[in-house]
Structure formats: C-alpha cells, structure tokens
C-alpha cells in the first residue's frame, strides 16, 4: 500500500513544490496549512510520516511534535521538521522533543527526497 505523508506547511507555494516532488517519488502527500488542525488530521489520517514547519499559525511545529510524541500511537512516527530559522536552539529543542530529522530552508529537492526515503524505507 502506498505510504502517506502529512505535510503541515502554511506557505502555499513551498507546500505545493514539496507535494509535487514527493508525489513523483510515489508518496501520497496531504497538506494542511495551520498547526491548530494538525492533531485532528494526524488522528484521522494516521499518516506514515509527518513533515512540519517550525513556524506555523495556530500551534507551533514544536508543540505539535511534543504532542505527537506524548501519544503512544505516534511515539515512533517518522517526523521531519523544516525551519527557515536554523538556529542551534531550534534544532536542540526539536531533538529533545524527539524529532526524527531536521532540515533548514532553503534545501535541495534531492535532499528532502533522500530524507523521506530514508525515514520511510522506500
């Protein structure tokens, strides 16, 4: 069965580019644009992976990550965090919260494809 990725990104154009890139690799990508609805979507969709931005409206990426890791069902869910901030403390906070991988924007398309393949075993 094709694996599903939930992309939580408020920037429409980058969300579209990421969905296009990953879809070509055979992944099914669902996009939501704010953090407030993330938890409900994850529970409903049960994705195989989550990609989320750090800065989101409604709820931050770090808050969503912490919430997911606190739930037994999502403790091992592969989660890739993206940020344009790239400061050490964001990475440290994300790693402490249990992120699977961390990438800073801008990134190469090949880079995100490789990270997703690595996390989903594709």
């Amino acid at each position, binding site marked *: 069965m094709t694996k599903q990725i939930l992309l939580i990104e408020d920037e429409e154009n980058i969300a579209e*580019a990421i969905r296009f890139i990953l879809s070509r690799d055979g992944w099914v990508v669902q996009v939501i644009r704010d953090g407030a609805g993330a938890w409900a979507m994850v529970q409903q969709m049960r994705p195989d992976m989550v990609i989320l931005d750090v800065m989101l409206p409604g709820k931050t990426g770090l808050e969503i990550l912490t919430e997911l890791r606190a739930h037994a069902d999502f403790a091992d869910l592969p989660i890739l965090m993206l940020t344009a901030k790239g400061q050490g403390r964001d990475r440290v906070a994300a790693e402490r919260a249990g992120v699977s991988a961390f990438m800073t924007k801008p990134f*190469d398309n090949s880079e995100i494809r490789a990270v997703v393949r690595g996390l989903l075993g594709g």
Partner: protein
Amino acid sequence: MSLTALTGNRLRARRVALGLKQGDVAARAGVSASYLNLIEHNRRPASQVVLARLAAVLDQPIQAFAEGPEGAVIDDLRAAALGWPLAETLRVEEFAGRFPGWAQVILGMAQRIAALDAAVAAVNDRMSHDPHLSANLHEVLSVIASVRATAAILADPEGIDPDWQARFLHNLDQDSARLAKGAAALVQYLDSGGQIAAQGMAAPQEEVEAWAEAADWQVADLHLGAAMSASAAQMAAELQAQVRADLAAMPEAEFAVELARLGPDALALAAHFGAAPLAAFRRLALATGAGLVICDASGTLTLRKRVPGFSVPRFGAACPLWPLFSALGRPMVPIEQVAETPGGDRFLLRAFCQPSYPRGFGGPELRQAVMLILPSTAPATLAIGSSCRVCPRDCPARREPAILM
C-alpha cells in the same frame, strides 16, 4: 613619586638628546657604564639616589624621569591583558619600556577588539532578539526556499507536464515579487540602524523611546511623530500624560530647589512633594542626565532612558543582577548599589518597586520596578553586565553562554 620601566627610556632619550656618551654620564653620576646601560634598557631599576645623580648630570628635574603620561600606557596594557592568564603582567613595565612600539601595537589591537566586540554585540542583539527582524528574515528565507524548490522542479531535465509548468512558473513569479519586497524592507530596516523604519518594523516601545530621545526626553509638550504607528502613538501619549502629571505634582522651580537640597534621592523628593515614588524617579531622570529603566512584574523593560556607558539591551532579558530585579522581589524596599559594568564604568543604581491594585481587592497585584542610573566614582560593590549573551563575566547568574566566550 613612582619610577617605572619607562624611566630607563627617558634617561636614554635625554642623554642622546644632549649628545653625551653613556660612559661619561655614568662616570659623572658615580655608577659603572654597564650599570647605566642596564638601567637605560630597563633591565635594572634605578634607586632614588642614583636617579637623582643622573638627573643632575642630565640637567633635568628628577620628576622628568618618573611616572608621567606613559603611566596610562602601563594601565592600558594591564587592562588589555585581562582575560589572558598567560600574560606576564608583573613585567608589563619592563615590556612597555623595552618595546614601546609593540606596546602601542597591542593597545591598538585591544582597542580594535573592543570596538569589534561592541559591534558584534549590537548586531547579535538585533539578530537574536529583534522579533521584527527575526520574523522578516524567516519570511525571506521561506520564500527563498519556495523559489529554490520550484526552480529545481522547472529545471528538471526530465521535464514536467505543461499545466504543472505553468502553475510553477506562476508560483515563481509570485515568490520572486514577495522576495523582492521582503528583501527591500529588510535592507531598509538594517540600514536604519536604531532608527525607526518607515514600514513600522520597529517595536512601538522603540518608536516611543527614539521619539523621546530625539527631544532629550522633554516630552511634555512634544508633538507626536506623524510617522508613528498607532500603538506607539498611544504609548507616547500615555508617557506624555504621566510626565505632565509629574510636572504638575513637582513643579520646575521648586523641584530644582529640592533637588539641590536633597540630591538625587527620589524617595526623599517623593516624600517632600507627596508624590508617588515612581513619579519622583521619573521626574528625577527627566530633569537630570540620569538613566532610568522601568520593568513590569515579568521583568520586561517597559521604559529605557539610556545613559552613556550603561548598556541596556534593546531586546531580550537584561542582566539579572541589576538592583532593578532585586527590588521587584522586595516591594517598597529601597535598594542602592554602586555597580561596575564590563567596560569599567561605575554607576550608582537606586531601585524601588511599587505594587498597585488598580482593580481593588478583587483584582491582581501589579508591580512596577524602577532603577535610576547615576554615574559614580565610588568603589563598586557589584559587577553587572547588559545581558548574558554579550557579557564576558564569569557569573553565577549566567543564563546562557555568551557569544564572545
């Protein structure tokens, strides 16, 4: 009178200026030529008796060879060596005497380092704590990421469906417009330095403080800036109202008389005029060249009237050792300390916290703490900084590593 290693230099310089040979001077002073050679090269100190004889031979008062303006060089070298434990500070006078050129090189480099440190601290303070700059940088980087990803898709040699191509070209067009606008705003903001940016990218508090500083804090009758944001205009109006009330409670002429009598004691002035202590602090700061910082119960600085030599962070938290924060935890208790900054400047800091209950028994307690900043020459009892991030001190209250360590 103290003699320094530079004494040798001066002796030699005077002897050479008179065209006298070392052996001749030595003989007339009753010392050996080899001994005089050691003295001139700062390898042996000259006793007062020997120096007096040499001064007589060289026809100069003894003071001409003792500590003079060059003593400042020794002090500056010692200051430059702070933080460098391997420096042989006990031999600094010998070093300065034997290698005056190198001493000047070291001092020049120390000055340059201090200037660069200050510039880095200022930039870092902005970059790390300026919420508007941070948000704008994030916006620019996000758009760049979108442009990069989209361009890579379009440039893919395998090609894409024409509909997708059109869609991504449209996205690229949109993103490049956003990027151009964002980058222009960023450049303008950075170019403005500490000044207010026309796009309203400065925090309202900064706008108000810049407006007040431009008028030397004489804001009672100052016109509100036409370019001020709505929030800043409201805050400025509130400050104006407070200042006018302070002036009414503590009129100019009488305040000057009492200030001369009582000195910069805000609590004594408040008692005399029957004014609130915070009002007296404010009145005092605005009537003199004193600095003033006010914080709320969270420790957030809500007013910053700066004074040269006392660095107040533009964004982020200030040094936790400031008496301002001690006062916050001890309301209605006056706190006074002479503090020294990392730059060596000393200030008398007088702090006080006044709780208020604007909504009565049923409402919350509000605390405001205020700290007056007065230059001082008294011995310091407290070592402080501006904020942990840019402070070089080894301090038990450190909150985070300094960028300079």
